């Protein structure tokens, strides 16, 4: 399964973090540095493994298992808010 940004979401990077706005609901979400890294990556469709690979390159002191858990939690939350879609 691959994930990609919902193209209706308006967003902008702020100091290596990101602010997302879902225009239909006016939901506003702030993403941390790692969340913003994944969000930018998801301008194109990617799998969970590809996202974890990206994070591991950036945060090489983190265990892969922990990165997988964090990535899945990130995806679950953004999918629940319709900020991401599956392809």
């Amino acid at each position, binding site marked *: 399964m691959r994930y990609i940004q919902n193209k209706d979401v308006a967003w902008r990077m*702020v100091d290596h973090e990101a602010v997302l706005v879902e*225009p239909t609901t006016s939901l506003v979400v702030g993403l941390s540095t790692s969340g913003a890294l994944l969000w930018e990556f998801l301008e194109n469709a990617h799998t969970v493994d590809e996202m974890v690979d990206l994070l591991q390159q950036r945060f090489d002191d983190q265990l892969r298992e922990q990165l997988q858990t964090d990535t899945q939690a990130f995806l679950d939350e953004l999918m629940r808010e319709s900020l991401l879609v599956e392809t």
Partner: protein
Amino acid sequence: MRSGAIDSLQIVTVGPISVGIQLSSGRLEAAAARRFAGFLSDEKPDLVIKLQEGAAQPDSIPIEIQSVERRGSLLKMQADFASLDLDFDSCLGCATVITGSDAQLRNAIDNLMRFLVSQLLLERRAVLLHAAGVAIEDGGAILFVGPNGAGKSTIARLSLESGYGILGDDLIVVEPETRTCYATPFMGELQIIGAVQVATIRSIFLIEQAGQHQVLPIASAEAVGALVAQAQPLGFVDRGRIPDLIGWVSPLAPICRRLRFRKDSGFWEVILSSSANTAK
């Protein structure tokens, strides 16, 4: 007896913008004069709206905006309190507000002006922000940002009781680039107009009620997100302009913190103490 067709012009100045309202009846003129007392001026208006009364409504206070459509310089808004057609190029527009009791009429004009002012501010990279504004020393102000029910009016009231001047308890005009804030005629629960008209923003607190007073740091994206969420009316900002809006308010992120407070004036001690520590 008045004829009703008087077409007087009242100029309402809110922060950096002035709106001319061309009023087609004595009743509208009286309602606008009462509603915007303290904000009427002789400034050259940035645009002029011809305002007329529409159909009478049942005894309710409608506030919902149904649709906003922006095509080039043209803006069309339909709400249950008014309809508006505006051309940003010619700086002219016309609006019809619902009529009814005097309170309904004043409320409809107030809601129309809130929308109009918010749209004009966006043209100037400024925002109408859900915030209470409290004046501090040397022409400065602290803003307390939060949605309805967060405690803005409570903070404004407690600040007044502690001897501070206020800009307002509900909606404040903010120019992020210059860190300037302005009072507005748009009141919250306190139903009073602020005594201070303009100030430099020293700090912004994102407020939430809690069991104790506490000031906490906040990440940039979270701060900017909270400011964007409280920009009025976010739901009717063009999607294409939202990234711009995020960019405009982002210079305020470094002066944003979170304030947890309970309903007593002890929060000022925590704020002043945290400010002193930050300055060290």
